[in-house]
């Protein structure tokens, strides 16, 4: 059996339960965006931001619900940070409105917004101790000294910072600074916390730990988190929903599983994970099944509800892990092509096989290294067959 066939045959609509890398959802069935009666907590209404000639954000309308962990994902310069900074109040939208908890905050200065931000550079005050940094926001409210101390202790306990209370930021490691920055952002118990590439400065191992810490904090405090990141794995790990942005446009808003399994465009498919895309023309479309004549002569059959017309240009997008790779010609496969192994990327748990098809196309297949053996059964220059079931691919028209 191929690694990818144990799936629900009905691809669309995707279940609200998260698929993909994240296995356990914090609250099962948490999907307020599917409830039409639910008021969004944060609403961007036709937001456009222009800097001179450059349009950073183009007419974005987006609803984010209470207790969501929402990710804005995209490459640098796609407008995701600008959108976040408009929510924090550091930038004013050229057009449109921002609404938080039913209140129009478009014209409010940052210091009057019910929002706290964690900065990419952490922006810790270098002349203040960890304690003073975390208590800064509370002091601005004129809270009583002993109450501030209690709240600071609470935030420090939550992030295990107690032993560093009297240190200055430059006496801390990167990971510790990151935790101080997070503690400072949640110390005022805001209903909305913004995170601007919060883990960008950490190394991979630490970043993974920090991601789970973020999720833990978000769940225990019941706060709405909006994170900006260019790291798709990070977005998939932490977020309840992801908004993918490209050149100022919002291209897709969906759960991580839905975005991975049903990307709307080739851009998204390529940005989130690896993808093989075969270009071709629709030759038949009926009963939720689409046939594509690929440009290199292959014929593929895929289950899809994508509205297409015969003759239309389309791409078949196929995740590497959904392709089965074998030496023998599959007997009853719907979609099968042959080729020669060009490259093998051995990553320990899995291996990537880069196969050059007879038509000259390069296809990547992925296989879990299930057997405990150093010998690889499939080797360089082997002639192999690639096949995938009818529900493995996605038909894209853009």
């Amino acid at each position, binding site marked *: 059996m191929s690694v990818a066939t144990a799936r629900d045959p009905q691809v669309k609509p995707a279940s609200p339960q998260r698929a993909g890398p994240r296995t356990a959802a914090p609250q099962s069935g948490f999907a307020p965006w599917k409830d039409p009666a639910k008021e969004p907590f944060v609403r961007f209404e036709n937001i456009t931001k222009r800097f001179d000639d450059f349009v950073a954000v183009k007419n974005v309308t987006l609803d984010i619900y209470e207790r969501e962990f929402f990710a804005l994902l995209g490459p640098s310069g796609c407008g995701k940070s600008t959108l976040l900074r408009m929510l924090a109040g550091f930038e004013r939208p050229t057009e449109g409105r921002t609404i938080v908890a039913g209140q129009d905050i478009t014209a409010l200065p940052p*210091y009057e917004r019910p929002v706290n931000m964690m*900065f*990419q550079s952490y922006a810790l005050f*270098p*002349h203040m101790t960890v304690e003073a940094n975390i208590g800064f926001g509370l002091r601005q409210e004129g809270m009583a000294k002993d109450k501030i101390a209690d709240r600071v202790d609470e935030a420090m306990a939550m992030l295990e910072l107690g032993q560093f209370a009297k240190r200055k930021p430059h006496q801390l490691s990167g990971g510790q600074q990151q935790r101080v920055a997070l503690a400072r952002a949640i110390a005022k118990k805001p209903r909305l916390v913004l995170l601007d590439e919060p883990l960008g400065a950490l190394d991979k191992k630490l970043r993974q730990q920090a991601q789970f810490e973020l999720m833990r904090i978000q769940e225990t405090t019941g706060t709405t988190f909006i994170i900006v990141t260019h790291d798709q794995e990070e977005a998939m790990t932490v977020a309840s929903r992801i908004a993918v942005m490209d050149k100022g446009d919002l291209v897709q808003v969906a759960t991580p599983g839905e975005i991975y399994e049903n990307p709307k465009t080739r851009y998204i498919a390529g940005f989130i994970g690896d993808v093989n895309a075969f270009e071709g023309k629709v030759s038949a479309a009926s009963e939720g099944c689409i046939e594509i004549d690929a440009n290199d002569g292959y014929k593929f059959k895929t289950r899809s509800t994508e509205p297409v017309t015969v003759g239309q240009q389309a791409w078949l997008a196929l995740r590497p892990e959904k392709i089965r790779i074998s030496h023998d010609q599959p007997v009853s496969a719907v979609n099968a092509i042959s080729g020669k192994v060009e490259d093998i990327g051995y990553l320990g748990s899995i291996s990537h096989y880069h196969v050059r098809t007879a038509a000259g196309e390069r296809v990547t297949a992925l296989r879990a290294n299930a057997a405990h053996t150093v010998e690889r059964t499939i080797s360089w220059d082997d002639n192999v067959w690639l096949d995938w079931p009818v529900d493995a691919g996605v038909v894209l028209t853009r």
Partner: protein
Amino acid sequence: MSSSSNSDIRRWYVIAAPYLWLLIFFLVPFFIVFKLSLSDVATAIPPYTPTFSWSIADFVSKLDFENYTFIFGDPLYVNAYLSSLKIAGISTFLTLLVAYPMAYGMARAPKGWQPTLMMLVILPFWTSFLIRIYAWIAILKPEGFLTMFLMKLGLITEPLQIMNSTTAVYIGIVYSYLPFMILPLYASLEKINPALLEAAQDLGSRPWRAFWQVTFPLSLPGVFAGCLLVFIPAVGEFVIPDLLGGSETLMIGKTLWTEFFNNRDWPLASAVAVLLLLVLIIPIVLFQRQQQLEREAGR
């Protein structure tokens, strides 16, 4: 072997050069002045006694601290020191008040503008200091530009009596030493990460409070360096009080000059000079320490 000892010698030269410079141009003159301050006035050339002789015991026995006891006994000198410190202190504070907004503006200006603004701050150094002070006479005197300008505007009817007063000295010092305040302030303000101010505002701090809680404390090294760079030379300032000040402006630099050139009392003048150095040693040491800390923090 020979090459390594060669480089040792070269290194020794490099280290020795600045110390030799200090020895010849600072330490030796200082000892000459110090020796002078222990001498007595004489109607002779040079106008003091004893002059140096090889009978060391005899020479040393003629030296005494008479000039110092005289200075401490005469309120004129003590007052001149105190008044100098006061005038220098007040003008340092005024310079800070004028320089801070300018440095802040420079640090917040678009990056492309900053070299030009820096250039404008340094530009006055292209003209002689003395000429610039003379120019202030033309501005401040009763029939000067300032009076004429304000009269034209109808703001005053009588000529301003600023010239030859302590006010004129303040104006002169603030004007002359402004760049020395602006540059270190700018250097420390420019280093502040703008995200810190955003963070302060994000946490609920209004801009004015954010300034006092974040920007100002972080600019303190610059404030400190700038104040010392203005205060130290201002204490011993001679030209500005001499040209712009009046009879009531008492400053030690002017007293020193009077002793040397009007009274030809070199020993007493030298004692005044040595005491001035002692008065300034505290701020100078503070300044050195501050620079040291800055360097260490920068690493």
